[in-house]
């Protein structure tokens, strides 16, 4: 049971999604991307709610959609479990009826349906709400019902469109664990859409990054984290991404020159610098780093036990330091500082 | 209402079974009285009566039966009594070609046939029942139609095998139905009466129109449509 997708779908004339993706049985692929990138569009196409314009969707040995061949399997025959981004719960039905909907539709035995429903309600702490009409749920409750409704049917493919966005932080942590366990038991391919890189890194075997309707990077969590190929991915991973020109161990970004460890590379490159790889000094530092320059702090943000500094000309870099360092160095907005980065800390890849 | 040219307009409420002949009377009257506009208000006699009782601005009322006229006179809405201006005899109507081979009134007792009359209370229904009792036939009725038109529609369409309507209707139906005469002994005459309404906006015109209907010319037009003139 492998999902093999290569599709072109246009939406309202303005937007076109053009993507290929392959998910093996038992593999979770996360689809990560900015708002409006086309993630939900992909879900709608896979689920059969939005026929594709070109290409093919193949699940196992079944062609689900292929306009060139005139094949289109309707949604109810696709055996795909979907958590929709906006849930699409049936407001007139109770929570239990919503969860049982799929099984009942598939004509399972009423007793079996009730039993399974009870299990899932319990699993998602929804038992107390079993008889509440779905339209009377809070946002997070509704999302849990949507999850239970999709997971209970044991489909051949799972499509989860931001299945935890509305959950509170602790429920999310618990559910992330539970979902992880559930996913690892689930035999088919699964596609997880999320905005939370942690979620993607934790739950997915492979990450596909989608931007403006195109897949821009595919790889493991580490590939994405360490070798981001676009500004969006770099921001996501917390890295600084610089576009420059390399020749014999030197990368020129704008007017600034960076020394890098890789002397073989040349031409247009992507250079990445992790924010924690940058050191901050009040005086010109002595020592090994080959890259040292002077700049100004243009923003200071406190994130719990980290502080993020944004520096200005000549290189806009994000730098992470400890609160203690901020105090010790007396850093504040507008402070002049010296930054240093070891050449070995700068990742370089052909752009 | 209330416009200045009211004297040029005469509103005549006429029973719908008088529709065709009154359209002819209207054009004849307008030809004879240039500048006068006769406006017909055609409807069931009872309906027209209700309108007048409710104060409808009508000048003349021509009813299909004296009974319908009576409440108007009783209410003092008409000066003096109403005048009978025409009579109409009844006839058996059958679909063109007479598919059920109706011979006469006796066939109305045949349960096998589809027979229709006008309903009790409707003039043609009352008359029709009188004819039946005079002929000593107990009709096997399948439908009591609310008016002649409705009855004729069904006969024309072949849905009914026979019904009793006015002779004038048979003539007006132009061969789409066939008429079978009812023997004089059994036949009855409907009396059409006319009155002018004192509350109407155009009393003068009303009187002139009623006189016209009763005039020799008017009576001739009526006779031409199969009405019997008194």
């Amino acid at each position, binding site marked *: 049971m492998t999902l093999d997708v290569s599709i072109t779908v246009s939406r309202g004339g303005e937007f076109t999604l053009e993507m290929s993706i392959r998910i093996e049985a038992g593999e979770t692929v996360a689809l990560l991307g900015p708002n409006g990138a086309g993630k939900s569009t992909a879900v709608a196409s896979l689920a059969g*709610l939005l026929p594709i314009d070109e290409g093919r969707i193949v699940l196992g040995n079944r062609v689900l959609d292929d306009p060139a061949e005139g094949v289109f399997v309707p949604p109810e025959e696709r055996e795909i479990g979907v958590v929709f981004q906006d849930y699409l719960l*049936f407001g007139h039905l109770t929570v239990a009826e919503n969860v049982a909907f799929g099984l009942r539709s598939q004509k399972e035995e009423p007793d079996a349906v009730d039993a399974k429903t009870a299990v899932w309600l319990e699993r998602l702490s929804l038992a107390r709400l079993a008889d509440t009409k779905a339209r009377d749920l809070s946002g997070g409750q509704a999302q849990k019902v949507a999850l239970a409704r999709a997971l209970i049917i044991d489909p051949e493919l799972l499509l989860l469109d931001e299945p935890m966005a509305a959950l509170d932080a602790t429920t999310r942590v618990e559910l992330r664990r539970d979902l992880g366990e559930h996913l690892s038991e689930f035999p088919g391919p699964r596609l997880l859409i999320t905005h939370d890189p942690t979620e993607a890194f934790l739950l997915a075997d492979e990450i596909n990054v989608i931007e403006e309707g195109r897949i821009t990077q595919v790889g493991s969590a580490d590939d994405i984290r360490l070798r981001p190929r676009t500004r969006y991915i770099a921001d996501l991973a917390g890295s600084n991404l610089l576009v420059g020109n390399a020749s014999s161990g030197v990368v020129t970004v704008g007017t600034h020159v960076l020394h890098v460890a890789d002397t073989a590379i040349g031409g247009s490159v992507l250079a990445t610098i992790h924010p924690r790889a940058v050191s901050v000094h009040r005086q010109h530092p002595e020592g090994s780093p080959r890259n040292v320059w002077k700049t100004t702090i243009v923003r200071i943000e406190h994130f719990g036990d980290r502080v993020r500094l944004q520096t200005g000309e000549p290189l806009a870099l994000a730098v992470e330091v400890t609160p203690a360092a901020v105090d010790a160095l007396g850093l504040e907005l507008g402070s002049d500082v010296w930054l240093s980065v070891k050449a070995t800390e700068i990742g370089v890849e052909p752009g | 209402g209330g416009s200045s040219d009211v004297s040029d307009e005469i509103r005549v409420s006429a029973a719908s079974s008088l529709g065709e002949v009154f359209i002819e009377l209207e054009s004849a009257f307008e030809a004879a009285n240039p500048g006068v506009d006769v406006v017909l208000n055609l409807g069931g006699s009872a309906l027209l009566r209700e309108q007048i009782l409710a104060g409808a601005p009508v000048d003349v009322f021509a009813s299909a039966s004296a009974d319908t006229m009576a409440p108007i006179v009783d209410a003092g809405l008409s000066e003096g009594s109403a005048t009978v201006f025409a009579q109409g005899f009844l006839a058996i109507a059958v679909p063109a070609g007479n598919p059920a081979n109706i011979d006469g009134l006796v066939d109305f007792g045949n349960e096998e046939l589809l027979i229709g009359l006008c309903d009790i*209370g409707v003039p043609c229904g009352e008359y029709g029942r009188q004819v039946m009792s005079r002929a000593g036939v107990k009709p096997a009725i399948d439908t009591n139609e609310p008016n002649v038109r*409705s009855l004729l529609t069904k006969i024309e*369409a072949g*849905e009914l095998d026979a019904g009793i309507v006015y002779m004038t209707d048979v003539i007006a139906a132009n061969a789409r139905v066939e008429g079978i005469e009812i023997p004089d002994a059994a036949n009855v005459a409907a009396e059409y009466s006319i009155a002018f309404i004192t509350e109407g906006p155009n009393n003068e015109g009303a009187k002139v129109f009623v006189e016209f209907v009763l005039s020799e010319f008017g009576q001739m037009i009526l006779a031409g449509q199969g009405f019997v003139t008194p």
Partner: protein
Amino acid sequence: MSRRQPRIAQSRPPIVFSVLAALGVVFFLLPLIGLLVRTPWSDLVSLLASDVVIDALVLSAIASVAAVIISTIVGVPLAWVLARLEFRGRSLVRGLVLAPLVLPPVVGGAALLFALGRRGVVGEPLYDATGLVLPFSIWGVVVAVTFVSMPFLILTVEGALRNMDSRFEGAAASLGAGRWTVFRRVTLPMIGPSLAAGMILTWSRAIGEFGATVTFAGNLQGETQTLPLAVFVALESNRDAAIALSLLMVAISLTVLVLLRDRWLRSL
């Protein structure tokens, strides 16, 4: 702080609304008052306690309920097709559905006669083959009444279907629900109030239908004479009886509707 009843969230109407709505109520109230003023209250019971009335009542009840049932069974699918499918000739079909609304009922009845009567386009072969005659029977009444009233159901439901967010149907399908299950468990409940409104319109139109019925089915007490036909006949002969009957119709209908609607809508 005193103990209080929980307050209900109350929408407040724009001011013009109150005025216009009041105007509307008066407009509907006046004729009813007119009717009540003319009602022969003292003879009411004697006027209404007759075979004719009871027969007509029963017949009207049967025919109008049958019309609602048939209209729902046939009309809802038709509305669905009109609302959801793109096909060549859709405008035409919609036009066809509207025809009975536009035709004067008497003409509609005549058209039915031409089509389904003993000598009609379809009625004649039907009669020759089976001996079945629709006119002059309760079937004729049901056909006439359904013909005239079904368009109300179709149009109301079509409007509601177009108003509805069809993504919920997609969600149901993705859960494996077949088209029929989707319709029954998602679509239908979601358009509930409009369907109810459509059924009420249909029933009301059916119970008040006169022209098509009398033309197509005729008027025989106990067989084809519905309440409006009885009223019409009484209008000719006995105005008091006609008014009494009309009031009875209004009273019954309102009782039924008010009971039904409040039940129905509350449960939604």
